[in-house]
């Protein structure tokens, strides 16, 4: 037993000799140190401690904007922390080192224990100790064998049957029974620890085969699952482009339900539903819904609804009334009442290139200072205001430009802030002239958009399966008692003793219970 456990396990004997070590000896010594309980415990607690900084400062993975903000607010501290990789704590060298060492230590512990457990599973219960009264749990019942050894044999046989019925593996000796049970405890223990390794490997390796991507889809538009149709795309390490499952999602309608009755929460959105039509090769189009907490499973990927907003549909005409540009432009929400900001770029068709920065108020209201704001997130009194700029939009230089940003520094304001004219104001269905006789712009409609996250992670099911094994292993390893018990006929009495292997708070009760049941069964047999 002691050989399978780390040398400093509570149950193992104290170490004694300290021989001189060679190179191999030192390697073995360090391996022993690494796989010792004390080191494992130290690494475990160090892991807990090392995880703390990542919760104190924003992380690049979960809060990239927070990191940028942190760097502008605390530039000096940022440099130091960034050098230590604190903004990427859970991918940092030191954090990885701790958990990798921990898992190496774990593997070094699991392998010998598995080997030992295989042997133990096939072993017979050991010989009955000579002096049972020395064991942890001990009790005895008076018993006088009447007719030579026949009664004693009956007593042993009764005990053997009883123990067998209780799930013990038994070995009968002349005057005693040796029994052991609870092998599942160690099995569970090994399953628990192996499954933890399984979780780590699934996350580390399996995650590399997946991808995540984002796409904003306006009502009436569709998304096709090809690389070029994503707004942003993050492939895993081992991802290859042909792993994209072919499917298409058309956003038919996006509905939001608002709380209307509860005075404390008027206007709080309580339900977002994206009604979509999905198309996969070889099957008919299917109408379905995507909601928060209820993603769409399609072609081995999951599609999540993670954001939404308004997309005003605008038509720009030249002075002769010819349509030169039309689009539904997603505006990014800025607050809870969906005051939204968007950018419109009209590079061709007018006398000059025109850029516009638009502010959209679903329910326009004036603040005390006269500025516009939105008072309610639904479309009650929708209003679009536009600042208009002319000049070179920089689209012809071949550099990639964000569709959500307009660099106004090089442009000339012609309406709104910085110009002589006020911002253009438009309600749905209204048309106004652009300044300087450039043409006109019309707000024909206000649609909603949904921002979809498309995730593909083939390792996910593996992680879940291993996690469930973790729980199963945990339950069996913690709550199944592993124990040996002995029943022995001695002169004038029968002795019952139990020995726990691992934590076993109910050992004494179990031995007492065994004695009682055995005495009852025995007296029944002897009387009949």
């Amino acid at each position, binding site marked *: 037993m002691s050989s399978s456990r780390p040398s*400093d*396990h*509570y*149950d*193992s*004997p104290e170490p004694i000799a300290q021989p001189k070590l060679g190179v191999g000896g030192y390697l073995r010594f360090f391996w022993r140190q690494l796989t010792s*309980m*004390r080191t*494992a*415990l130290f690494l*475990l*607690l160090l*892991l*807990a401690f090392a*995880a703390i900084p*990542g*919760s104190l400062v*924003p*992380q690049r*993975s*979960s*809060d990239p904007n927070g990191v940028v903000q942190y760097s502008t607010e605390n530039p000096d501290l940022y440099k130091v922390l960034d050098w230590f990789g604190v903004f990427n704590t*859970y991918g940092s060298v030191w954090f990885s080192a701790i958990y990798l060492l921990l898992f190496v230590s774990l593997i070094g512990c699991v392998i010998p224990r598995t080997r030992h457990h295989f042997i133990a599973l096939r072993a017979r219960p050991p010989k009955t100790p000579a002096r049972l009264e020395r*064991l*942890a749990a001990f009790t005895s019942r008076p018993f006088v064998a009447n007719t030579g050894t026949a009664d004693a044999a009956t007593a042993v046989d009764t005990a053997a049957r009883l123990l067998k019925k209780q799930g013990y593996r038994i070995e009968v000796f002349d005057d005693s029974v040796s029994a052991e049970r609870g092998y599942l405890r160690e099995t569970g223990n090994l399953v628990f620890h192996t499954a933890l390794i399984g979780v780590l490997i699934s*996350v580390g390796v399996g995650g590399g085969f997946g991808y*995540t991507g984002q796409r904003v889809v306006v009502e009436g538009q569709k998304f096709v699952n090809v690389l070029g149709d994503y707004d942003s795309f993050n492939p895993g390490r081992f991802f290859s482009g042909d792993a994209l499952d072919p499917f298409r999602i058309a956003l038919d309608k996006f509905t939001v339900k608002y*709380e209307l009755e*509860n005075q*404390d*929460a008027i206007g709080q*959105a*309580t*339900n977002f539903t994206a009604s979509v039509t999905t198309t996969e090769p070889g099957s008919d189009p299917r109408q379905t819904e995507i*909601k*928060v*907490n209820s*993603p769409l499973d399609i072609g081995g990927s*999951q599609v*999540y609804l*993670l954001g939404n907003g308004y997309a005003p549909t605008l038509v720009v005409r030249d002075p002769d009334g010819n349509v030169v540009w039309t689009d539904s432009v997603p505006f990014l929400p800025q607050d809870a009442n969906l005051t939204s900001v968007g950018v419109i770029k009209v590079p061709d068709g007018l006398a000059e290139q025109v850029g516009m920065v638009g502010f959209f108020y679903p329910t326009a209201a004036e603040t005390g200072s006269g500025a516009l704001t939105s008072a309610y997130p639904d479309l009650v009194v929708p209003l679009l205001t536009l600042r208009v700029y002319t000049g070179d939009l920089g689209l012809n230089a071949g550099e990639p430009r964000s569709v959500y940003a307009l660099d106004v520094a090089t442009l000339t304001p012609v309406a709104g802030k910085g110009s002589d004219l006020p911002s253009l104001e438009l309600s749905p269905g209204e048309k106004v002239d652009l300044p300087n006789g450039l043409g006109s712009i019309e707000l024909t409609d206000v649609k909603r958009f949904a921002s979809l*996250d498309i*995730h593909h992670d083939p390792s*996910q099911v593996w*992680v*879940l399966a291993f*996690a*469930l094994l*973790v*729980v199963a292993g*945990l339950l069996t390893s*913690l*709550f199944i008692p592993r124990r040996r018990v002995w029943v022995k006929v001695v002169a004038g009495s029968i002795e019952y003793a139990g020995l*726990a*292997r*691992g*934590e*076993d*708070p109910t050992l*004494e009760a179990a031995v007492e219970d065994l004695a009682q049941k055995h005495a009852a069964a025995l007296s029944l047999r002897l009387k009949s």
Partner: protein
Amino acid sequence: MTPSLVTFSLIAVYSAMAVYTLAFIAFTVDLAKRSSAAPVAVAATTASSSAAGRATALLERVVTDQPLAAGRSRALKAAMALTTIGWALHASAALFRGLAAGRVPWANMFEFSLTATAIIVGVFLAVQFWQDLRFLGAFIVGFCLILLGLASVNFYVDVIPLPDALQSAWLVIHVFVAILGTSFFALGAGLSVTQLLQARREAGRGGPGFLATLPSAEALENLAYRVILIGFVFWTFTLIAGAVWAERAWGRYWGWDTKEVWTFIIWTIFAGYIHARATRGWRGSRSAVLAIIGFSAVMFNFTVVNLFFKGLHAYSGL
């Protein structure tokens, strides 16, 4: 309809707090009486067990039925009766709140605190059928009273509908199991604190007199271990259920969100606690300290992380 239910709930909360206050006083009176009545020489009853237990397995004898008459103190009986009444009021407060909101009563900081303390006291009462842990009454009731008071005064918010992200069956499972785990960790922490005091006294370094009427440090450690094991299983489940829910709601099962980080930290600390029990040199007071650190981390996760840390679990409602 709804406003009156909310009012009922609040009335019940304040009544429960009043009754708990009386229960707390009665528990402390009991402890004081134990101190004055405690016989001087009960120490060193278990001193011999360590030598005998060396070579074989763990020689645990959970000392449950203390031979002393402390359990029959009138103050203690009154305290338990008051706690039961207080708990009935407390539970109905949570129930009314849930009825008023038309959902489970744990969707913001006030409701978390209300329901969590109700479950902690409930677990404390239920556990008495298994082991006599009434001596933890002052600790548990005092702790819940403070939390409940803080919550009612500082965290109170009106009933509002659930945000979309919380509308899931996992809200019921994940949060409820997390609270259950917390309850057992709370009991474990109380036992571990007592264990540390008891170990001091057994080492001859003094301590409050009522310790003489309580189980030995070793017995307390065994009890704490068993209680924390249950908490650990619940916590493991919470972690996994949370990951499954996060996958549904946020599109990833694990993202090192601040709350996720702290749930992980707590899991690791208690995993360490369980291993400490099996490591030479870590049994006894050291593992007790780990249990207390673990529970402090739970409370930190519940209060500071919920209120001040930025993250996706921003449901405090404040």
